[in-house]
Every structure is written in C-alpha cells, then in structure tokens.
C-alpha cells in the first residue's frame, strides 16, 4: 500500500516537474518575442498610407550591399521593413524613420520605433507572411537573413538590402541607405559627423610614439573573450591610440585568451564591452567592472592595480563609433583629450539627429 502511494506521488511529481520546465521555457520564449511589442499593441495605422497611392515618375537606383549583390530599388521608397537591428537608428537619423512600417524585435531606438509592429525576431527569424502583408517596397536585413528567405522576398519583387551595421562597413551602409531614401546629403552629413571626430583623434595621437600608447586588453561578452588584430574592435583600439595585447596570430573568430598570457603582458588598460545581456543600468556597469577588478587572473595587471578598468556600451562601439572612439581616446590619453567631453558630444549627437534628450549610462566610470 505504502509503496503504491509513494509511486503515485513520484509519478505526479515527475509529471508536474516536466510540465513546469516545458511550460517555463515556452513562456520564456513567448515573452521574449512579444515583450518589445507590448507597450503599443495597436499602433496608429494611419502613419503612412497616404504616401503610397501618389503616382510619381519612377526612377531606379542601384546599390551594392555588403554581400556584393547589386540591388535595384525603385524610387521613391515609402514602405520599408527593417529587420536589421541597428539600421533603424541610422534610417531615422537620415530622415527615413517615417517610412519604416515593420521592424525586428531589437530595433528599439529611437523610442518612436515602439509604435512600429514587430515582424521578425531578428534577420534570423523573419515572419515572411507578416512582412509581405505589410506590402513593403524595400526590406533591409543583416547577414542573419538566409539566402532562401532573401530569394523568396526577391521572387515577389521586393528588393532586399543586406548590410552589416558596424565598422568597417558602416559608412557604406549609411550611404546606401541615403541613396535609396533619396537623402544622400543627410547621409553624408551623418558620416561627416563621425569622420570629423575620427580626424580629431587621429591628428592628436599622430605625434605619439609607440611607447606612449598604452597596452590594452579588450574583453567582450564573457571572461577572456578578446579581439584579435585586424578585427573591428582592434581597429578602434588602435585608432584611439592604444596597443592591443592580443597577438596577430589568432585566426579564431572568437579567440579566448590564455589568462597567463594576459598576466604576463600586464595591460595598462582593460576595456570591457557591455551588451544588452549584461543589463543596461548603472548597476550592470558596476557589476562588470567589479568582476574584472576582483578576477584572480587579472589581479597582477597594471590596469587592475591602478583601477584603469573601463566598461563601454556596445552601441558606442558598433553604431556610434565616433562616441566610442572619443571615450577610448580619453581613457587612453586623459591629458591629450582633457578638453573633450564624450558624454556631452553624445548628448549633442542624439539631440541633433533624433531630436530627443539622451538618457541612460553608456560608459563607466
């Protein structure tokens, strides 16, 4: 009797546990997909329809995207589905924000994006039906979009531009967006904003000898993940007047550096990139920095001994490289860039291109 009772209890418990795990996972995935959309479930449907019916003289432009494909786009473009996280920011900055009718779940900046319906998790998972129902005349995606899905869009006559929204491709992408939006001047202005600061930093560090440039250990995502020479992160470090300690022989896409190598190199500065996964509030920056300051493998490095450990939001390195560059340059050469206030320039930039006041933390300390 007792055995039977026990058995029944175990059966029930096991079934409940399995159900709980499966349920929790499904719920987790569900919230992940739906949460960014929840603030405004039914966005104003009247945002764009007046634009499409007006018959205008058709003009076509051809742009070459990141994949080397020549994409022919008929102007004017009025309905864009953007499923490349990051591209929304650029499109809005150069006057194309109004034309975005569908987006991926991670295009959340500028805040006006929250009114645009989500039609894809990211380029990896586009909802084909929802996208086509929006009747777009241009789809912007990143390399996550599979060739098969790209062909399906093209088969129904919708041009697809695939772009990587980070250096070294960023400027070409902005220019391509400017071309298809008919806003090339604004695109060039946006590029010039970045370039002016790149030139400023370049000029100031030009006279530095190699020994005046601090050695830098750059880390991203997980402990000991670094960037090898020639990567985009490495280029930023070098542009800001630093020396990356990762050797050039690393032919691994996500190199993980040996702790004893880092200890021996004893970098003077440690920069850790913060991603959305780490959280984006003040505490997240502090947590990351404290972890590095207290990590055993790093305790002997100059950077930790002198507390030269800095955390930077990945948006500043990816989408707003001018601001990221200024932060890095000021950390590497505080006296040389004493008159530069990266935070203030960041605020100016956001005000100028998006008309909003910047809030939040982007670099620490």
């Amino acid at each position: 009797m007792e055995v039977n009772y026990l058995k029944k209890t175990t059966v029930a418990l096991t079934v409940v546990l399995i159900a709980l795990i499966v349920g929790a996972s499904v719920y987790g995935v569900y919230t992940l997909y739906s949460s960014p959309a929840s603030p405004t479930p039914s966005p104003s449907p009247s945002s764009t329809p007046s634009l499409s019916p007006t018959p205008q003289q058709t003009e076509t432009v051809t742009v070459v995207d990141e994949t080397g494909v020549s994409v022919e786009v008929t102007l004017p473009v009025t309905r864009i589905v953007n499923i490349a996280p990051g591209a929304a920011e650029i499109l809005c900055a150069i006057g194309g924000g109004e034309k975005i009718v569908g987006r991926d779940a991670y295009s959340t900046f500028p805040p006006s994006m929250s009114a645009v319906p989500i039609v894809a998790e990211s380029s990896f998972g586009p909802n084909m039906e929802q996208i086509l129902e929006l009747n777009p005349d241009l789809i912007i995606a990143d390399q996550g979009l599979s060739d098969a899905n790209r062909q399906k869009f093209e088969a129904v006559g919708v041009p697809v531009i695939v772009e990587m929204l980070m250096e070294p491709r960023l400027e070409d992408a902005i220019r391509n967006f400017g071309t298809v939006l008919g806003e090339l001047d604004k695109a060039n202005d946006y590029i010039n904003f970045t370039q002016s600061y790149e030139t400023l930093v370049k000029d100031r560090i030009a006279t530095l000898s190699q020994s005046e440039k601090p050695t830098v250990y750059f880390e991203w995502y997980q402990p000991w993940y670094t960037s090898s020479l020639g990567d985009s992160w490495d280029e930023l470090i070098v542009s800001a007047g630093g020396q990356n300690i990762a050797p050039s022989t690393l032919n691994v896409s996500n190199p993980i550096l040996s702790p004893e190598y880092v200890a021996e190199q004893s970098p003077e500065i440690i920069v850790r990139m913060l991603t959305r996964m780490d959280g984006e509030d003040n505490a997240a920056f502090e947590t990351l920095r404290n972890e590095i300051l207290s990590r055993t493998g790093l305790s002997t490095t100059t950077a930790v001994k002198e507390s030269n450990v800095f955390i930077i939001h990945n948006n500043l390195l990816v989408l707003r490289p001018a601001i990221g560059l200024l932060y890095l340059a000021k950390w590497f050469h505080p006296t040389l860039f004493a008159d530069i206030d990266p935070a203030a320039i960041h605020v100016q930039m956001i005000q100028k291109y998006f008309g909003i006041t910047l809030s939040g933390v982007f670099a620490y300390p």
Partner: protein
Amino acid sequence: MSTAAELRRLYSKGKKRKVLAIFALFIALLVAIVASVSLGAGSPRFIEAMNVIFSRVFPFFNINPEPAITQFIIMDLRLPRIVLAIVAGAGLAASGATMQGVLRNPLVSSYVLGISAAAGFGAALAIVFGISVIGLFGGYVIIANAFLFSLLAMVLVYGIARMRGISTETVILAGIAIGFLFSALLSLIQYVAPENEAVPAVVYWLMGSLHTSTWTSVLIVSPIVLITVLLMVQQSWNINVLSMGEDVATSLGVNSKRVLGINMVLETLATASIIAFSGVIGFVDLISPHIARMLIGSDHRFLIPCSALTGAFMLLCSDTVARLVLAPTELPVGIVTSLLGVPFFIYILVSKRRQSWR
C-alpha cells in the same frame, strides 16, 4: 598442492598485478603534472616552475626568488587548473566506472543519463538570458544553474524509473528521454538567442574548458569529488555482486534498487559539481573505465581507483595540449579529449587480447 591454496596464490598474484598497474598510472600522472606545470602560454618553464614550487614548499631554501609575476602564473593560474583537471578527470571517470557497473552497461556516461544535457541547458539559460535560479553575478550564475539542472535531471530520471519499478533498463531509458528533453530545450535557447555572441559562448561551454579555474573552484569541487569517490569505492563490493545479475545479488542479500539509488546520487553529485565548473567534458567518463578495465579487469575495488587515475591522466594531458596548441588562444578541452583519447582507446582495444567487458 590443494586447490584452495592454488586459488589463493592466483588471487594474490592478480592482486599484485593490479596494485602494480595502479602504481604505474600514478607515476604517469606525476610525470604529466611536471610537464603541465612547465608548459603554457606564459614564459615560465621547468626551471622557473620548480623554483617557485620548491620555494613555497621549503621557504628557507629560497635563495634566488622568481619574479612575482612568475610566481603568480605558476601558483595562481597553472596549479589550480592542473589540480582541477586531475580532480575533474578522476571524478568523471570514477562516476563512469560506477554507473557502468551498477547499470551493467558499457555505454553509460553522463550523456546517457541526461546530466550533460541538463547542465548544458542550465548554463545556456544563464549565458543567453542571464536567468538564474539564485541571484548571483558573473560566472557563478552559470555554475549554479548547471549544477541545479543536473540535479533536477537526476531527480526526473529517478522519478520516471520508479514509476515502472526501478531497474537498469528504466533508468537508462529515462535518462535518454530526459537527455533528449533538455537537448531540445537547449537547441531552442540557441535558436532564439537574441545576441549573436551568445551562441558561440554556449557552444564553447558545451565543449568544456578549464581556463577559468581558480583555487576557489578547486576548493569547492575537490571535497565533493573526494567524498563521493570514496563512497563509490565503499560501494564496490555491492557493485561487484550486482554485476553478477540482480537475482544473484538479491540471493546474496544485496538490495539492488538501493545500491542503484545510492550510486546514482553519488555519480550525479560528482559529475554535476565538475561540469558546472568545467563545462561539458565528454568522453572521459565513458572511456576511462574501459581503459582501466582492460588494464586490471572488472573488480570494482580496483577498477574505480584505477579509472579515476586514468581519467585524471587523460584530462590533464588533454588540457595541457588545449592550452598549448593555439597559445595564447585557448582550445576547448572537450575537443582534445576526444581527439587524443579515441586513437589511444582504439589502440588498446585492438592490441589487447583480454576480453574486458563480459
């Protein structure tokens, strides 16, 4: 000569051979330790390493102290990693030997019992979403999650097996089922991972690595492994009896269900605490017991310690190679374990005449 004396002589001869094999393995492990402490991405080599260690053991002989950075590399980076490799290898292999014996199945490993997949799922939850069961930060979220989900897998396997009356078949089948459940959930996480960087991080974790080892991790893992492995050795008579079949065991007064339950708990505790820190290191727990069995036969009183030594040796050698091949980049140790272990295992399999698995 009487038969009894003859048997006793044969037995003690076999016993001597077994002790000798264990001693030889011990020496091999010592050599591997010396080699491992002398090699790495940093510059310290044999002389420096020995200097540092001897100066720590005999402080009064310290005539020519090494620079602080050399001492740090040897004492705080290489040694904890070496110790963890030994402890992890020994724990995994002893667990493998125990469970293969208890379940009377040569294919049993932490993969088959669903523990690896569950640990992987827990870790991936932490890596991709930062979701943890307990509020901790940094690497500890991953460790706690991996550990707790491994235990959860064991509870589920045991619960399911109990429904049909616990037996070797039900445990293995339940383990496979739970393993598939967690693998599917793991794939789901990887598929929906919002950050592109998260997926390689999960994959890397699943391949196993010891590069984040510290004395803290050694201090946490070692006592658990030491105690569980000793308890496994204590169980070896029961396992020996059980390996003659459940009926024989019952007639000799061994409660096979109880032995199975106890060993499942021991195995899970050891394996879970190890892979929580190291990531999923496969193959060691599957193959080390076989190598040990080929060397000394299947008396679990000797097999469990011998497997532990084999596993420790295997994992230490693999991790040393993983540190060196692409230095200063780390290679996941799980890859090396299989790449080095498989040819070695096939060699033993082909060259040995003895039938190791009845």
